[in-house]
């Protein structure tokens, strides 16, 4: 039974991520179409049924799998094959340490809705993200194409620059909640400030939240931070990729978008917390309560987590189709001369406030 719970958790979490990522590939086309007053993807059908073009997800994957798989003659065959796998693997592994629900007592079993409960969970996610860079760098190098190499170098330069800002931003959140465990952070966000305001990260770390979201968007390498890919100029590290290997890079972009949304939810939007919902049900600060069975509480909290993640993904896509892209020097200037100093300022201010409040 213990094993069954573990396997069920992993399967649920993995299929949620993959499902959301593939829905995002459709959403990207449909949402941009709506924003630009077009109809968008609607041609793929099964027996005439189109359901808003959702079958395009299946059609796209069949296309990816059956396309010719090409390795450049001068390229490095092994590294060219391995690179997209590295990128996809490390993008997915990072999710393991993120809780998508609390701990529940159901029928005598303790169910903790987190795959890998680590007391340094946040650092684990960052470690996996920093390893993911190799997929893009190696993909660019192994293609033996100067444009691909340029894209790979841009990708690593951009990801390193923004990872520093991301790490420095998160320090403020770590200071406020006093833990590196993502589950502990979520539990801490269930507390109330002044007796009625939920202690979510966005309220305690407003500047940190904005900086983190910006840096996380830069990590996904999508517009407005799409210099490594630059579809209209160098095409980027995957210029020599085709078929499913390109598909892996393509999917990695969306999985990273989901990861950015999941991390933002966990750190700044209360994770699986629903305001005033506790293990026994709702308890409102103005008096009054509403009892709920444990399973209902679990479903509500997991549902709230998914809804928050989905909303953030939607907003990220909105940003992607609203803003024009940065030039390389603007990107670097934003990262190093604006965001990094601001995130250090955030640490200092948080420290001072914590000292005052603590005394």
């Amino acid at each position, binding site marked *: 039974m213990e094993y069954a719970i573990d396997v069920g958790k992993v399967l649920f979490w993995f299929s949620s991520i993959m499902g959301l990522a593939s829905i995002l590939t459709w959403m990207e086309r449909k949402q941009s179409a709506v924003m630009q007053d077009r109809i968008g993807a609607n041609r793929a059908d099964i027996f005439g049924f189109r359901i808003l073009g959702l079958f395009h997800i299946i059609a796209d994957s069949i296309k990816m799998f059956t396309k010719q798989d090409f390795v450049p003659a001068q390229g490095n065959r092994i590294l060219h094959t391995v690179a997209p796998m590295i990128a996809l693997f490390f993008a997915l592994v990072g999710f393991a340490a993120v809780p998508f629900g609390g701990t529940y007592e159901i029928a005598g079993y303790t169910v903790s809705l987190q795959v890998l409960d680590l007391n340094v969970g946040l650092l684990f996610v960052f470690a996996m993200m920093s390893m993911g860079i190799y997929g893009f760098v190696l993909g660019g190098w192994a293609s033996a194409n100067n444009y691909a190499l340029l894209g790979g*170098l841009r990708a690593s330069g951009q990801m390193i620059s923004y990872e520093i800002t991301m790490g420095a931003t998160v320090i403020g959140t770590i200071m406020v909640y006093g833990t590196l465990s993502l589950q502990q952070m979520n539990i801490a966000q269930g507390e109330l400030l002044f007796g009625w305001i939920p202690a979510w990260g966005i309220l305690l770390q407003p500047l940190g939240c904005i900086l983190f979201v910006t840096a996380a968007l830069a990590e996904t390498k999508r517009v407005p931070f799409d210099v490594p890919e630059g579809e209209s100029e160098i095409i980027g590290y995957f210029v020599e990729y085709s078929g499913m290997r390109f598909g892996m890079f393509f999917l990695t972009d969306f999985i990273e978008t989901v990861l950015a949304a999941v991390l933002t939810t966990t750190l700044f939007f209360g994770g699986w917390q629903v305001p005033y919902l506790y293990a026994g049900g709702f308890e409102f600060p103005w008096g009054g309560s509403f009892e709920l069975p444990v399973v209902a509480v679990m479903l509500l909290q997991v549902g709230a987590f998914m809804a928050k993640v989905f909303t953030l993904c939607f907003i990220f896509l909105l940003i992607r189709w609203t803003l024009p892209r940065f030039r390389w020097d603007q990107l670097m200037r934003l990262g190093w001369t604006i965001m990094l100093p601001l995130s250090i300022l955030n640490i200092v201010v948080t420290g001072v406030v914590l000292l005052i409040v603590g005394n």
Partner: protein
Amino acid sequence: MEQLVFYLFATIAVVAGLVVVLQRKAIYSALALIVCFGSIAVLFYQLGAFFIAAIQVIVYAGAIMVMFLFVVMLIDPESEFFSFNRIRRVSVLALPMSAVLALILLWAMPVLRESDTNSQSLAQKGSIEVIARSLFSDYLLPFEVTSILILVAVLGAMVLAKKVD
């Protein structure tokens, strides 16, 4: 199971370490070093030192090795920089330095073996709370001095890299 994982990753670490030294192509050496760091991180994880394992991956396998890979990729592998003659001159130093390292390890092993009888204490030593406490109290001065040293090194690199007109 735990033993199996240990032997698997210990073997990977040793083999990868050998590849780093024996491989002629610089890019494979760099990649093998990343694998080596990664498997050592797994060993730290097994000892219960999660924080050190995470930092090992972020700092060594992640940040530092990306810089190595940058250099290797940007420099032509046929160039003088990687030529065998150039390396042979340095390799004279390799034997004495390896000997010194081996001696240090031989000296340290009995000491470590005595202290790790209680693996519980070892796990606690690697936890973030203990490391933070000793860094910011007992070793505050060395810690701050090191950070200033790194800052000076960064500034020095900037000065060297930027052309003065």
